[in-house]
């Protein structure tokens, strides 16, 4: 469980993270989405105690990271896979991490196997591709068998096989009851992996919701009443349910913001026969872009201190 409350980080004049509040719950993969430079990495650095919040707080299992007694057993993290000493072997890299966490050397061999780097364990990290470094970084995150996993853009630089591997690993970890928090700037990367998404833009929370909800919200549904005279009644009912309704020819309606199933039920409640209920295919990427388009400015938002 990760909980942010009013989390804020200001770097001199730039407000990188602005009053973020969200929870990342166990048993699910939560995608952390936002355009590049929206504050995802800064948020993750604050979760891990690398950067101190300017105000607000963020906790892991109820405690600020720096107060965790055995951090590696609570949360495993991979931020930047390039952050390793190039001259150390993969095994040695994991060994110092295990030493620091008070974890036995046997676990090092286990995670090397788990991420498929065992055969290259004695190679220096500078001979590794970015994909292999990602795997090695994930091995480090898994060392302490933590209940919370935090990965910053883990699909960057991966080949399709690596992407498939990470996706199934994340699904497995979440299925085992773990809290999995994964950032990405691409919605389509998260579409098949995440159960929930926390979307931020310019350091501010845009939405935190189930991915199914986002999916249904983005979908435009063409609805037609069998009797065109009833179209206005239906439109009114849909608006009351929170939908955005646009009129179409011959009493047809274009409805957004309410799932098709809900539209059908509303029609039934109002005893309106439908001649059409057609979800328009609409990619999540488009919903995501719509959500983050409003507030996004071409340059990072700055606030001048007077």
């Amino acid at each position: 469980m990760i909980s942010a409350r009013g989390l804020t980080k200001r770097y001199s004049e730039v407000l990188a993270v602005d009053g973020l509040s969200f929870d990342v719950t166990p048993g699910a993969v939560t995608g952390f989405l936002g355009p590049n430079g929206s504050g995802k990495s800064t948020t993750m650095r604050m979760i891990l105690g690398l950067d101190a919040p300017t105000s607000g707080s963020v906790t892991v299992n109820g405690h600020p990271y720096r107060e965790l007694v055995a951090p590696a057993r609570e949360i495993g993290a991979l931020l930047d896979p390039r952050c390793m000493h190039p001259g150390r072997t993969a095994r040695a890299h994991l060994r110092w991490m295990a030493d620091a966490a008070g974890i036995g050397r046997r676990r090092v061999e286990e995670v090397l196997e788990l991420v498929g780097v065992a055969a290259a364990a004695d190679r220096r990290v500078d001979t590794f591709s970015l994909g292999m470094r990602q795997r090695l970084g994930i091995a480090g995150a898994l060392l302490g068998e933590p209940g919370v996993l935090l990965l910053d853009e883990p699909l960057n630089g991966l080949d399709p096989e690596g992407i498939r591997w990470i996706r199934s690993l994340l699904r497995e970890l979440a299925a085992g009851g773990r809290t999995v928090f994964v950032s990405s700037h691409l919605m389509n990367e998260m579409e098949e992996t995440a159960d929930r998404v926390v979307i931020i833009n310019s350091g501010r929370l845009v939405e935190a919701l189930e991915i199914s909800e986002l999916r249904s919200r983005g979908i435009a549904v063409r609805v037609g009443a069998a009797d065109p005279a009833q179209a206005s009644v239906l439109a009114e009912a849909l608006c009351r349910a929170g939908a955005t309704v646009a009129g179409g020819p011959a009493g047809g309606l274009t409805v957004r913001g309410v799932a098709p199933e809900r539209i059908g039920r509303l029609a039934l409640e109002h005893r309106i026969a439908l001649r059409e209920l057609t979800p328009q295919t609409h990619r999540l990427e488009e919903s995501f872009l719509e959500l983050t388009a409003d507030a996004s400015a071409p340059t990072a938002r700055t606030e001048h201190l007077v």
Partner: protein
Amino acid sequence: MTTTLAAHPTGPGPRAALRAEHTKFWSVRTLPGLAVTALVTAVVMALLFAVSLPITQGTAIADLAPTTVVEAALVGVDVAAVVLIVLGALFMGSEYSSGLAQPTFISTPRRGRVLLAKAAVTVVVAAGVALAVAALCLLVGQAVLLGSDLPGADLGDPGLLRLAAGSVLVPVFYALIALVAATLTRSTGGGIVAALVLLALPTVLGWLPGPLAAVLVPALPAAALHSISGTAAPVEASPAGAAAVLLLVWVAAGLGAAALRLRARDA
């Protein structure tokens, strides 16, 4: 549920950080390589210092006191100090240059522990190298004498032993200062430059007007090190005990400042 038991009531302590830094030190080539380089360079230079005495002193070795020859060879320990300064600075500086600091401080969020662990490893390595170098320098000086068919120096001479023991402290102290300065500047270069400046400072301050130098010079670590090894100039001299305290104050102040900076700054 009214009470929540911490899932992991006991976590890794300072010894875990020490083990981690020990593993780090020995799992790259550069750091142990520098320790070996310090040893080899120091011994070669000790030999050069001893055999070049006729040129540098303008006197034949036969006309010099045997202890003078061995003392010249012991300057090799100072050569080791320069290489170990690089080692101390690189041990912390490479964390920042390679980005390793990120996983390091995620693994050990109590950052002061990382600093203390690195300091402990640096002190042990530097002391080991310095002791070996000092012993070898004594032997080199003696070998130069015996090789010139001259009577050897008395290696049990208290003055000579005090000089050797005091010399051992030089690389240990400056390697530690380099580590501290690399932490404060987050760079290997910063660590090296700061330690070298501190090493050279007595000479620079010596150019200051007498009264000013008389106040500043005795407060420098060089004065304390010279007082301990019995080679202090009059302006530097203080009792060995006071000198040892002064060195400890320098180390404690340096480590304290670096630890505070590590804690306060974003990693």
